[in-house]
């Protein structure tokens, strides 16, 4: 099964990397995004402000990490899946000798390869342009990687839930934007969650997305101790299970309606 998933991933990554030009543009976009953030924060720090104990270097590093992690977390299968459902490809995909969830996980992994490349290049360029802080320790860096890897699985099941809506609406685009909106606030992409007002922090704490961006970066900075990190990882496993069950139920229901109505 894992071989099959990897084969699909490889194929998908190849197709994606064929458009190298695109990847350059993504990187360009990310750099613009960072530029805006960096200059705004610079304007604030120039006046000698110290914001909640974060130095300017930390804030810069935070945003560079956000933008580098962004493609890894927020790109996904939704467009591919939505198009496939709308154009009736779904019936062929259901006949694949591999389960639908595994098939798309392969595609997701394929995109992950692309997004990791984009993320790393973005990180390097921005590090050179703006300067970054290195991880606090090797162990923390390893934890950082583990938590992000699990996050990909978490968002994958979230994407499946979102993607299932393509069975009911003609274009998945609206739902997709909605997904991104939720992700970017509650994962800490817009700003460190510690700077959020109380009630937003509370919402962020109950959702699984905080552990996709904010938590790994905190680990990177060495702000979490090992016990806290283990707790985070356990929490992620629980979320994976919950989202998997929801995705399975919704998907089976949707497929049933398709096979009954004949598409």
């Amino acid at each position, binding site marked *: 099964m894992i071989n099959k998933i990897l084969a699909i991933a490889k194929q998908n990554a190849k197709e994606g990397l064929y458009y190298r030009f695109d990847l350059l543009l993504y990187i360009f976009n990310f750099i613009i995004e960072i530029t805006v953030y960096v200059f705004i924060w610079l304007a604030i720090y120039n006046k000698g402000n110290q*914001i909640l104990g974060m130095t300017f270097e930390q804030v810069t590093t935070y945003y560079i990490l956000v933008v580098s992690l962004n493609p890894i977390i927020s790109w996904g299968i939704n467009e591919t899946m939505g198009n496939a459902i709308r154009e009736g490809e779904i019936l062929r995909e259901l006949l694949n000798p591999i389960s639908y969830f595994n098939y798309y996980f392969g595609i997701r992994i394929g995109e992950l390869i692309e997004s990791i490349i984009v993320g790393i290049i973005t990180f390097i360029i921005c590090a050179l342009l703006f300067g970054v802080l290195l991880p606090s320790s090797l162990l923390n860096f390893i934890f950082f990687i583990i938590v992000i890897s699990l996050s990909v699985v978490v968002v994958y099941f979230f994407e499946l839930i979102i993607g299932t809506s393509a069975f009911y609406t003609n274009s998945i685009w609206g739902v997709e*934007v*909605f997904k991104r*909106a939720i992700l970017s*606030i509650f994962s800490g992409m817009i700003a460190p969650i510690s700077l959020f007002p109380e009630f937003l922090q509370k919402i962020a704490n109950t959702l699984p997305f905080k552990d996709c961006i904010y938590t790994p970066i905190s680990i990177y900075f060495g702000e979490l101790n090992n016990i806290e990190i283990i707790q985070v990882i356990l929490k992620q496993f629980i979320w994976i299970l919950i989202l998997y069950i929801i995705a399975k139920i919704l998907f089976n229901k949707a497929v049933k309606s398709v096979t009954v109505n004949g598409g």
Partner: protein
Amino acid sequence: MIRNIKLYFSFLVASLKRMMEYRVDCLVGMVSQIAFQIIELVFIWIIFQHTDNIAGWNFEQLLLLYGIMMLSISITDLLFDSTYDIGKRLIRKGKFDTILLRPVHPLISVLGESETSTALGYMILSIVLIVSMLIKLHISITVLLIIKILYFGILGGFIIGGIQTIFSIAGFWTYKSNEVVWSVFQLHKLAEYPIEIYNRFIRILITIILPFAFASYYPAVDYLEIEQNYIIYIVPLITIIIWIIAVSVWNWALKKYRSTGN
């Protein structure tokens, strides 16, 4: 010319009708767009929890600037949105040939296909922001000011739309032109904030090379009466120049396209 403009609006109406076919998507798109912008506003708000001004601009002033940019963007979205993915949507599928066979300039046909629910989201948000910030800043809302805001909002929309149209010709060579145009469009984000915060390179980029700042910053400075500025009088000129470039570039690309085929 008049005929082209009339046809453009006929096409646009057709696009709007088409949009109404997908009411749910439309609504979701609009709400999401508002949600997206609110994210940015949340960001600004969070910043102002920790400072009282950015480069001399206070919270209300900054939001006014933001709202002005939104107004311009909403016009761009409403009128010129369709240029951004011609590679994927039209040229790759060969649909562009049918557009070339119409007795209208292809750019009119393409622009007329704009259909965007996000425009409405931007517009609602921008109006709310502009009006509430003007009140908060104790700037009296006179008829003249309203006319000014609408006038510069529309011009701003045309400036950004023109920039987008220039880069949309990438679609004749790459099917993934949407990414090119999107990248350029994203630069408008730089002009959502006062240009004082940037270094010289970025200032030149958003005032001279890609004059996004004329769709937000300069009108805002004028409304806020921060300083006497005459720059605002060249906004129409800039708009016209941009569109002359856009149309020429398009004609050039069409000529190339016709000599190489698809």
